């Protein structure tokens, strides 16, 4: 009996250990290839060079253009998603009848469940032509269209998590505000949002991290032209799109071009890691407040 229990516990522990091995594997793989990449390209160049042309004959390995592309699409996405998501969260939490919320919340979550390749199609085939009819100067590949679509995709992240945070505000606070004659709007903005701020911020950061790591939408609709720009109407390339580009091509294993995806991957990994942990930290502090 006792031994059987021990064996079961051991097997279960091994299952849990796989998660650690995954992380170790990711870090090891990224570092191993990146280190060999940085023996050929200096870290300084990598961080400061304004051009990224590893696949050209005149090779430049500056990550900045890829970062700016990533930043651009991410910012557009957040600009779309934040007001929308927050409004939905407040509306569902304070205004909407319970039955309505019960139906709408899972429906909204479907937005996050749709495969990203489908969003990419949407951005390229529907949104870009539509935007071009408004801004004639818009290029066929650009940061704006995938950014907007990405924004729609991450709306449920912000709305769901923020709604949870708002719902977690003790009802005594809410009632105190109503008791003083405040409207729902005033209660929401003056009491609930400040009280739930950490939860909301953490949801936004999580959404940001999601947008940075998003691949297919930008790979399809943003173009493959790394350029250091803040103009959302021209083709750009993000880190993720670059990795896809290299993976699709016939780059020989072990070549410098091949190693670039690891250096780019490492950059992406570091960014998302930082954002995720900031989000956890903020959220944890917030939870402590009400326990």
């Amino acid at each position: 009996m006792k031994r059987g229990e021990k064996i079961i516990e051991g097997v279960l522990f091994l299952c849990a250990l796989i998660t650690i091995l995954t992380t170790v594997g990711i870090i090891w793989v990224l570092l191993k290839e990146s280190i060999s990449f940085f023996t050929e390209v200096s870290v300084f160049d990598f961080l400061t060079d304004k051009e990224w042309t590893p696949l050209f004959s005149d090779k430049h390995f500056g990550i900045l253009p890829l970062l700016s592309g990533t930043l651009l699409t991410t910012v557009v996405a957040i600009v779309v998603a934040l007001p929308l998501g927050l409004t939905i969260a407040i509306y569902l939490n304070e205004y909407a009848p319970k039955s309505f919320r019960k139906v709408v919340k899972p429906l909204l979550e479907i937005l996050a469940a749709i495969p990203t390749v489908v969003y990419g199609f949407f951005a390229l085939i529907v949104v870009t032509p539509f935007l071009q009819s408004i801004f004639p100067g818009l290029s066929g590949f650009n940061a704006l269209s995938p950014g907007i679509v990405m924004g729609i995709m991450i709306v449920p992240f912000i709305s769901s998590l923020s709604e949870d945070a708002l719902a977690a505000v003790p009802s005594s606070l809410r009632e105190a505000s109503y008791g003083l004659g405040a409207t729902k709007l005033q209660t929401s903005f003056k009491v609930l949002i400040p009280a739930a701020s950490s939860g909301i911020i953490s949801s936004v950061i999580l959404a940001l991290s999601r947008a940075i790591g998003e691949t297919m939408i930008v790979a399809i609709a943003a173009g493959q032209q790394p350029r250091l720009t803040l103009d959302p109407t021209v083709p750009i390339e993000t880190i993720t799109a670059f990795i896809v580009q290299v993976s699709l091509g016939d780059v020989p294993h072990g070549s410098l071009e091949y190693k670039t995806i690891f250096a780019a991957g490492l950059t992406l990994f570091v960014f998302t890691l930082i954002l995720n942990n900031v989000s956890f930290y903020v959220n944890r502090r917030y939870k402590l407040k009400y326990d």
Partner: protein
Amino acid sequence: MIKASTNQWKDQLFRIYGIGATFFGLLILGIFLVGIVIEGFSRLDFQFLSSLPSRLPGKAGILTAWTGSLWIFGLTSITSIPIGIGAAIWLEEYSKKNRLANLLEINISNLAGIPSIIYGILGLEIFVRMMKFGGSLLAGSFTLSLLILPIIIVSTREALKAVPRSIIQASLAMGATRWQTIWLQQLPAASSGIFTGIILSLARAIGETAPLIVIGALAYVPFVAKTPMDEFTVLPMQIFNWVSRPQHGFIVNAAAAILVLLIFVFIMNGIAIYFRYKSSKKVKW
């Protein structure tokens, strides 16, 4: 008094704005779906489902893609479900509050936030190169298993947590061992929650493209995979491939393939939502 009525007015305005915002996303989703259906529905026939890929849009089909997706679904389930549930049980029921457990905890939250493409890079090095699986179904499903493992673990833990402590105490007090308690009480009680989490994560795996691109899954596979070591393609890969082609015929094909993919995904989400709804009604602790 005037102030109060202004406030009321603002309040009403925000209500309308809130409804608008809520439906904006859904509206766009609706428009898009209708567009896809209009574009792709006519293409969706038996020939499309049963044909191999082709250079001609009118002859091309998604046989290899949807069979590949089914393979991936099956193989990923087999690897990720037992490991995910096992890990969740260990973390929730066996781990002591020490540094190792803390590390695992933080680690899993972090894994859930790592972009899928990074998993692709991991799969490329470990499964494709080191284990020499090549761009096979096995490499693909292993990679996707690692990708969805954190989601399964987190949702399983949530489901286990929702089982009242009193039930566990009662079982232990009856002289049941830890494992008997988990097996006979906690897992059955948490089953619908666990199942919901698994379905949702598998739905995600079905829709993933980026990691498979990185591990070298091919867009053009002219045969149906027979063994896990075969090369493969999946629906999202096929869609991606078609989207990036200039001819309009391929766009129509992409729309039709999207319809098939969405049917897959929506059915799985529907099942998950149904289960969540059912379990929320069933047991009142």
